[in-house]
């Protein structure tokens, strides 16, 4: 058995790609990942997906339809309900397989294991294993999962590097991974920050073991994982940074609240906060102007 399975390069792919790719390959599939988002792919999403959806979701639909047009009739679209205890990802992700389903021809099959870590890490593991058992005998499925998990852990550990802040301006970049890691959607923001000579640290640099307790200073810690990670990372990094840059898709409800939480935390400290909302109409030029102005502001603040 060596059939191709498509993985859209969008949303939680950016969190779990080592695990998903390795796992599917170990199970005997040939994983085909869609290319990095480009105008053609995004355009597909914009013209199909329900109009009030957020940019990354539209991009996801674009990636999925792109893969289907390449002749793939199997897609891996897990339903990522939760990645951490007692927390949710986002309502869009809860309904993702059903939403994507309604935009694809009926001949396409979606594989959608339910990943729901609300009651602990056991459920996703179990869910992956059950998925694997459809294709391989128990021992092989278990080995496949363990190998995939090892690859995933290795990558996560490599990302958790908080010492990489050089001198000069240091910025904490907050935002969902599927925006910060998708250079097309965020208008190549990281490169631009680099060109401006700022040191960037993202929430991904802090593991849950740090951000979860760090977010406890709030009377009611947020129940969306990405918001909790952002608030926790801010709490950890607040003394080492000069500014906070939040990027979010336009219309993202969790981020509007994150803005309030971040704003109330840094009020009184020396850090400044810039919120950028991205949608399909965002121009890269305007983005550069705003980043430059923000860096100018930070520099002026620093020099007193």
């Amino acid at each position, binding site marked *: 058995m060596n059939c191709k399975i498509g993985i859209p390069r969008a949303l939680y792919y950016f969190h779990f790609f080592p695990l998903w790719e390795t796992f599917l390959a170990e199970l005997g599939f040939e994983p085909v990942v869609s290319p990095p988002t480009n105008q053609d792919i995004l355009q597909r999403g914009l013209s199909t*997906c*329900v109009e*009030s*959806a957020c940019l990354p979701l539209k991009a996801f639909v674009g990636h999925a339809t792109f893969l289907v047009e390449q002749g793939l009739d199997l897609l891996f679209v897990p*339903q990522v309900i939760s990645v951490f205890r*007692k*927390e*949710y*990802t*986002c*309502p*869009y992700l*809860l*309904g993702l*397989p*059903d*939403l994507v389903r*309604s*935009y694809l021809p009926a001949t396409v099959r979606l594989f959608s294991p339910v990943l729901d870590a609300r009651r602990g890490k056991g459920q996703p593991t179990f869910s992956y294993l059950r998925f694997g058992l459809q294709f391989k005998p128990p021992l092989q499925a278990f080995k496949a999962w363990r190998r995939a998990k090892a690859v995933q852990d290795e990558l996560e550990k490599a990302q958790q590097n908080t010492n990489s802040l050089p001198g000069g301006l240091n910025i904490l970049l907050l935002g969902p991974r599927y925006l910060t890691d998708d250079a097309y959607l965020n208008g190549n923001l990281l490169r631009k920050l680099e060109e401006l000579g700022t040191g960037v640290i993202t929430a991904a640099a802090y593991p849950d073991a740090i951000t979860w307790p760090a977010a406890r200073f*709030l*009377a*009611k810690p*947020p*129940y*969306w994982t990405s918001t909790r990670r952002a608030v926790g990372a801010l709490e950890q990094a607040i003394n080492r940074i000069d500014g906070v840059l939040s990027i979010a898709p*336009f*219309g*993202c*409800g*969790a*981020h*509007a*609240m994150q*803005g*309030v*939480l971040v704003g*109330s935390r840094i009020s009184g400290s020396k850090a400044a906060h810039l919120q950028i*909302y991205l949608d399909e109409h965002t121009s890269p030029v305007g983005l550069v102007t705003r980043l430059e102005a923000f860096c100018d502001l930070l520099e002026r603040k620093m020099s007193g």
Partner: protein
Amino acid sequence: MKVTFPHLGNAYIAIEALLRGLGHEPIAPPPTTRHTLELGSLHSPGELCLPFKIVLGNMLEGLELGADSVLMIGGWGPCRLGYYGEIQRILLEALGKRVEFITLEVPRGSYATYFQRFRKLAAARSAKALLHGARLSWAKLTALEGLEELALKARPREQISGAASRYLQEQLARLREAETVHEVQQIVEEAEVGFRAIMGPERAHLLRVGLLGEIYTVVESFANLGVEERLGELGVEVVRTISLREWVENHIFRKALGLYSLRPLRRLASGYLSGFIGGHGLESVARSVALARQNLDGIVHILPLSCMPEIVARGILPRLSKDEQIPILSLVVDEHMGESGFQTRLEAFVDLLQRRVDALGKQRSACLSGN
């Protein structure tokens, strides 16, 4: 304590009774107006949804009337509503208001915290007074929803335009003053007769339209620009699928006891949506299927701009509409809505439904004459 609370349709009648029973002085904010919304929008992050802004406006207006605490509901996701109270607390604090927030939610942790919160809320009154308050409040909630349902039936059949809505307002005002459960029951019984008097003779075919969507925008008539009245005046009987009473039963009592099950909804929605997506998203999809199977003529789906669960539902509804053969109108509401555009869309939808019914009727009679 002087407690204020956000408006949610006519629920203030029941909330007042509850707070009185608990030994507090309820301070109902003035009816929601454009000013409320502007006040709320001024102090909210722009990206938050319409309900957040109206609710914050209500709180601010309530505090202006001298309230010192705010009653709000909370939750633990994934819908944003659960976190609104917390954000509103932070925003009000930043505005320099000294407010105590009483959040009604299933607490994280033990039942002891549940009990502690309840103790804090129940301001040293006798058990008898508490019980009376709770019973009265429940009776009023049931009654006010009963009255509203009667008005939904009466509006398309009324002889004098606007009579049903006026009568409803009168009865609600009486209900607000009622002090015993017996009085409440009497009001409902009288209203049944009263509404019947308003209605004219039965029409041949009355269009019936289901109303569903995000609970706040469906229940709060300011947020949906009075969609129930508008449809009623266009001669359409509105079938409600959302009831506050049911919401309280399911989400406060049953959930706390672990008795709430989504299975019936999931069964209805199967093939379209596999499970809970937060808010009323699953309900919207499941109830659309149910309404289609009850042979309703159409569905109006209301959602606030950027409401994530309802956007997922909205993405799925077109397919459902095709498969189940029922026209669905999705209306997105936010603070920039214009009344006339809204009215035009409703009128166009009702025209479409009427034409569809006529065409189907002709088809049917053609079949019969062909026999």
